[in-house]
């Protein structure tokens, strides 16, 4: 088990390393391949009244004159050892997980990421709670009442749910619930939980529902399929043959087994979501990691982009790791091997 965990951890680190190298080279290499010079890169970050000399200085300061591996090495070093930043009248220490300084705001990226994380976390956790409850419940009911009106209605709605782009449902729901009916908060009015839990809840309600709607739909379908499959298993028949009440059969025996494969999918979904619910955050203007990423990209703010992509990849990797370990907890067959 321990070696298994270690191996998975090493693999995860390697994976992050590859992801970072790939992201890095795409951002640093592609523009250069297309003919950008350190100066033209720097002109993005010099303000509106820069002289060529300033451009030079900035390019230098941002390290654009160094070869790519030096730049990458510096970046990696910053993460592990921290780095120093010259703010003009002195230097500032950026402690260990230092993802560099924004090219534009000249602020360290890491605190920014930490700052955005709660937003995305709130969004993801809330939505996940909703979709797991609704999705699984719908899926189970549908499976148990297979072929009934309820089943068909639920599956119809679910299929519609997975077929609708989130930015469409988001826009429509904003229009209807927040603009027309004024039931929910308008976009962009996020309030941190620590500030006012009520407002926090109110501001996230619509994003939660919209995000959860889409995922519920997917989970309802998956749960239903999983339930139908497990309900056809021999051990379900055994449970019935033992005289277990139907509820115990479906919940303790059926659902338990049906949900296990869902765990993997949930892990991946949740991990991806933590890395930034880009579209949802964009539509509802939530200042989370996804919006941060989009803004960073729009502004060509490479350290931010790198930071946020690494964060996202980290979440996926960690989520997968957790899922694998959880799997071992849930499924004894995995545990033993």
């Amino acid at each position: 088990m321990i070696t298994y965990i270690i191996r998975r951890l090493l693999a995860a680190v390697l994976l992050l390393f590859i992801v970072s190298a790939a992201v890095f080279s795409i951002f640093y290499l592609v523009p250069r391949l297309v003919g950008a010079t350190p100066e033209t890169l720097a002109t993005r970050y010099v303000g509106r009244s820069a002289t060529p000399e300033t451009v030079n200085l900035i390019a230098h300061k941002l390290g654009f004159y160094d070869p790519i591996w030096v730049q990458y090495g510096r970046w990696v070093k910053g993460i592990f050892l921290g780095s120093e930043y010259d703010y003009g009248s002195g230097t500032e220490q950026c402690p260990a997980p230092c993802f560099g300084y924004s090219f534009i705001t000249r602020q360290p990226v890491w605190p920014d990421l930490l700052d955005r994380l709660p937003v995305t976390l709130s969004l993801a956790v809330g939505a996940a709670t909703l979709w797991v409850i609704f999705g699984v419940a719908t899926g189970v009911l549908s499976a148990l009442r297979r072929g009934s009106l309820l089943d068909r209605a639920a599956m119809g709605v679910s299929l519609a749910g997975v077929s609708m782009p989130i930015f469409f449902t988001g826009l429509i729901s904003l229009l209807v619930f927040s603009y027309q009916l004024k039931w929910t908060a308008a976009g962009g009015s996020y309030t941190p939980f620590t500030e006012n839990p009520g407002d926090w809840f109110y501001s996230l309600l619509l994003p939660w529902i919209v995000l959860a709607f889409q995922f519920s739909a997917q989970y309802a379908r998956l749960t239903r399929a999983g339930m139908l499959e497990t309900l056809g298993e021999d051990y379900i028949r055994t449970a019935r043959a033992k005289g277990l009440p139907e509820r115990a059969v479906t919940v303790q025996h059926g659902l338990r087994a049906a949900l296990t494969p869902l765990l993997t999918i949930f892990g991946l979904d949740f991990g991806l979501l933590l890395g930034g619910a880009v579209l949802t955050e964009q539509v509802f203007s939530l200042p989370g990691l996804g919006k941060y990423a989009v803004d960073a990209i729009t502004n060509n703010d490479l350290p931010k982009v790198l930071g946020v992509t690494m964060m996202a990849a980290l979440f996926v990797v960690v989520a997968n790791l957790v899922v694998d370990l959880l799997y071992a907890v849930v499924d004894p067959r995995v545990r033993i091997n």
Partner: protein
Amino acid sequence: MVVGPGTVSDQVPVTPDPAEGSVPGKAIEGRSLGRIAWTRLKRDKVAMSGGYVIVFLILVAIFAPLIVKFLGDPPNEFHQNLIDTSTLAPKGGTGISGDHLFGVEPQNGRDIFSRVVYGARISLLIAFLATGLSVVIGSILGVVAGFFGGWVDALISRAMDVFLAFPLLVFSIALAGVIPDKAFGLTGDALRIALLVFIIGFFSWPYIGRIVRGQTLSLREREFVDAARSLGARGPYIIFKELLPNLVAPILIYATLLIPTNILFEAALSFLGVGVRPPTASWGGMLSDAARFYTIWHFMFFPGMAIFITVLAFNLFGDGLRDALDPKGRR
């Protein structure tokens, strides 16, 4: 009943095959699994209606110029006379009329109907090509990984992990952003489409790859592969003649189910502003424009519904196809 030894006639089946059902005698031509699946699919009303919608959409995409000629205006043509310039909204709210079935866009008064129709071209083209690309990459790498196993498999599987760990959307936006205006001898829409196809296709292959790999792994253990091998068949023969025919069904299913995902993906990229370039109409792009005018409902409604119906149709059809082709449904 006893039949003398030495002859082989005591085994000749007398009764009609149960599998053949009630049509004895006939049926010299065997019914392939594909044919059976097709019959089953034809019986699935829902899936077939999805299929009809898909065919309809493809026709719409192909004949967009013709349709627009009769039912609309050129997709990029302005109708500012239909716009209230101080509010930018279409006069009368939506501008829906006989000339403009879905109304006109605010601000410039372009015909939403014809833009939705033209948008189908972009959506379908990109989705199909991207799906094709990922199917090709995914199938090849999946089969290779599954068949050869060992370090080849390890390498490809890790590559899939890397791709799956990528924050895909973020990454695509970023990639679409740094790609220049002219490359690979392409410019304009052609380049954008190629780029989107590449990004979408290149990043969604692991999904197919995983499935194909898994299927290959299980197929590889099937005895008919051993049988071929014991006849002296080489690797390529086994891959192409023995394995691939069995992979067609899962590949087809997941390709059909990947298309709607890719449509959504393309729409998302366009929505985030890295899709095809304006004024070329795309559904995601229209929604992104509509977001600025979110109080004007019809602007977001029609392209949104177009995406919804298209994706739904593909999902319905894909589900039906899976039910029809899934080996589990067979017995």
